């Protein structure tokens, strides 16, 4: 689905290469500053790579804007949810879902639609609520590749199990899509079919959860 070949960006990413296939659930992990979020932003077009290749379903997407990449089927959940004045939760989800009914996306992330749909996406909502709305806006996309940047950040422990259920459910219902999650959480890594450890802008380790998790433990 997506081939990342020798991607470099400033001094943050140094020749990163790997492929993402339909049905994959990949977790990218690594220390702060290792380039995880930057890599995600390069894939969805927020940042433009300096060198390397990005092929989405065989098409070179390097020169495509983030709008064009979104329309091709790439979806990205921000690590820090964005605040808006005047834009309601309903507005955001309807943009994401293309005007279909959006209640179900809020329910999936554990929020009651009647309590949230007409609220503005601003600081009147807690960090955890904003994060869940951010995730809902990405789930609402009919994407082929979903990238979630630290979806667990700000989510309380009670909602964490629900989050894992959301990813499992997505994988089951959309077998032709792929999910990439940037995370440090072992519980999320355990549901991945592949884990990639990024260190100093390079892939330091890559493989199945069974293979990589023990090595990560040894490194700690």
């Amino acid at each position, binding site marked *: 689905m997506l081939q990342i070949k020798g991607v470099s960006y400033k001094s943050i990413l140094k020749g990163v290469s790997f492929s993402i296939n339909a049905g994959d659930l990949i977790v990218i992990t690594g220390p702060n500053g290792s380039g995880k979020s930057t890599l995600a932003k390069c894939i969805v077009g927020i940042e433009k790579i300096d060198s390397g290749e990005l092929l989405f379903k065989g098409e070179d997407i390097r020169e495509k804007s*983030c*709008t064009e990449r*979104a329309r091709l089927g790439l979806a990205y959940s921000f690590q820090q949810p964005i*605040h*808006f004045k*005047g*834009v309601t939760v309903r507005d955001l989800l309807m943009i994401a879902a293309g005007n279909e009914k959006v209640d179900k996306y809020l329910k999936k992330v554990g929020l009651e639609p009647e309590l949230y749909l007409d609220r503005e996406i601003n600081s009147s909502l807690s960090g955890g609520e904003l994060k869940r709305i951010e995730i809902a806006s990405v789930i609402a996309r009919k994407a082929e590749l979903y990238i979630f940047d630290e979806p667990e950040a700000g989510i309380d422990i009670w909602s964490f199990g629900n989050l894992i259920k959301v990813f499992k459910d997505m994988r089951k219902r959309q077998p032709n899509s792929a999910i990439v999650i940037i995370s440090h959480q072992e519980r999320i890594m355990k549901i991945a079919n592949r884990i990639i450890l990024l260190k100093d802008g390079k892939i330091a380790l890559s493989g199945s959860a069974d293979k990589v998790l023990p090595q990560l433990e040894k490194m700690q």
Partner: protein
Amino acid sequence: MMDLDKIERDLMKEVSGVTGIPEGAYNFRVNGKSIGRHSSEKIDIIPKTDKSGIEIYVADGTKNEIAHIPVIISASGLEEAVYNDFYIGDNCEVTIIAGCGIYNCGASDSIHDGIHTFHVGKNSKVYYIEKHCGIGPGAKKILNPTTRLNLSENSCAELLLEQIKGVDSTRRLTEADLAKNARIVIKERLFTHGKQSADSKIVAELKGDGSSVDIVSRSVAQDYSRQKFCSQIIGAAKCRGHSECDAIIMHKAQVSAEPSLDAQNVDAELIHEAAIGKIASEQLIKLMTLGLSRRQAESQIINGFLK
């Protein structure tokens, strides 16, 4: 029904939502003349005899009634000052839908100065909606509204003041005097573009204990337009006042905000907030990652902001 052409009908709908004869009291003013007036059982509309305008009397205890008093100008070069006085009795709950639309395709400026004075009785609540817009390729469309409110004990007013588009110049003045336990909410939405200018001044004097004001101004200035917003809250009693001014500035526009607080009583609690800035890039990017173009994303953010 009213004898209006399509442009006038569209403007009427835009500023007041009126598409036919509405229920309740109304006065439709088109090109300086009333083309339709109706009093209801409890709302009496009487034309002034000494100057241009009307007097609106709302009987004590009137509930859930609406009065429409829109103004349309389609005659280029028409200049008018209209004085409308509202006498709202005690224990009422009424909605006043005003608003003015100007179509100008001629060479002379068209100007409407609407001076509205409200006397709101005890325990009454009034909703006041005023939308302004201008269209047409001709000379300037100028609207200068003045709204004065005298709020009696335990009364409440909620104002929605909107300038939608196309108004070349506006000088807006909103003044309120509040007695004991009176409350006012003023929401202003201003959009300017091209070389338009907008000056808005809102003054609230909290004279009675327990009175409160909440001023929320949101504006968008595009192109070479210029906006100035001044709010002044005078707390002369045990009262609460809040003023919030947010502006999105784009292109070569200029915006200034001058919120002012004047506490004249130790128990006055007054707050102001003002923020001016361009559309945050992360907001644009977020919407673009949902498939909107940059232009669509800007439009979504602006429309939401001014909603």
